[in-house]
């Protein structure tokens, strides 16, 4: 779908609100290392895999931030940043910009502020986030279901139905799990939960998906309590 850069779709949003979010991105400590100015050479676009498949341009991101175009920033914040694959091929920039890094900052601001576009973009990743946060492993073999991966062909149904046996066919002991990618040690899990607590990651989750926050809170607080930690995510 073509990216609408006219700004008409966000004309109803106060300029002050757009500027507040813009300043939040600029205020990040990493910002000065991600943007030095733009030659508009387009090397980042040439290197960008997402630009080949979507109406997406890392150059637009760098230019918009450099020109401090607040209205266009807000449009890109909602309608463009989630098309980036965060591969950082754009770090090839001769001016040493990192459009991918700018997008990281923009995504963080979008999530922290609970933008509807961020909620929508992340909706399909609920279980992946749950898996990372709760188990430390991103994808689980049991995600491979026929209804979720029709493009993988009809044999997916057979794999899904007999997943336990397929997993047992793999020699390493740790790879036989079906609910997680590998067996995760309890000590690792506790450390992860404490990191999530200390870094405020759960506050971000709460902004975009309250249901996910609730179940993670239950899982983490129970496990931490069993391990002797008095920690609350409220």
């Amino acid at each position: 779908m073509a990216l609408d850069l006219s700004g008409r779709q966000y004309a109803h949003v106060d300029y002050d609100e757009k500027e507040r979010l813009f300043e939040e991105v600029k205020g990040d400590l990493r910002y000065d290392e991600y943007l030095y100015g733009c030659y508009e050479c387009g090397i980042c676009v040439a290197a960008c895999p997402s630009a080949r498949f979507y109406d997406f341009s890392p150059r637009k991101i760098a230019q918009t931030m450099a020109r401090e175009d607040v209205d266009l920033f807000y449009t890109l914040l909602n309608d463009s940043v989630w098309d980036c694959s965060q591969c950082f091929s754009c770090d090839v920039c001769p001016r040493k910009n990192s459009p991918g890094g700018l997008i990281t900052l923009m995504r963080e601001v979008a999530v922290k502020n609970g933008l509807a576009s961020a909620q929508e973009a992340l909706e399909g990743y609920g279980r992946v986030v749950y898996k990372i946060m709760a188990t430390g492993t991103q994808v689980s073999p049991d995600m491979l279901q026929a209804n979720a991966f029709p493009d993988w062909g009809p044999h997916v149904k057979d794999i899904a139905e007999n997943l336990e046996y397929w997993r047992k066919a793999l020699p390493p002991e740790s790879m036989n799990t079906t609910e997680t990618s590998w067996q995760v040690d309890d000590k690792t899990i506790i450390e992860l939960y404490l990191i999530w607590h200390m870094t405020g990651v759960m506050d971000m989750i709460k902004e975009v998906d309250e249901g996910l926050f609730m179940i993670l809170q239950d899982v983490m607080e129970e496990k931490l309590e069993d391990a002797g930690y008095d920690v609350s995510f409220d």
Partner: protein
Amino acid sequence: MSDNLEVRGCVLPLSLHYSVGDHTWIRLEDDGTALIGMTDVAQNLAGPLLHAKPKKVGATRKKGKPVATVESSKWVGPVKSPISGEVVAVNEDVKTDPTVINRSPYKQGWIVRMQPSDLAADMDGLLTGQAAVDAYRERIESEDIKACEHVDGFEI
């Protein structure tokens, strides 16, 4: 009049009480307890379920807090309790085969049984009968929720 109504193919028994916002139902039992489960709309949105993890017996929950976590291939979410109270029983069948929720969301697929702690107050926020169906219809249409598809062996 039928005991059930349908909205976009999603079945809603008129006898149950619903928390339409959370896609859950409760059935009040003669012994003062209440069965809690997911609606047909919810099971359809979630897709074929892979895991259902109810809270343990003895857990106390406030209204709106999760009594279970359910997972399908790419989705995970809470089953939020429509009432406050204590979990007095969990459905072991849904733990071993969560697709029973897809097949029988209102009967075999109940998730927990609760002893309510403040039923009169909690019931105020729940809808039943035609009022529940009307509210659900409004939600389904305003959010353009997809029509329900039922697996083989689906039962009301």
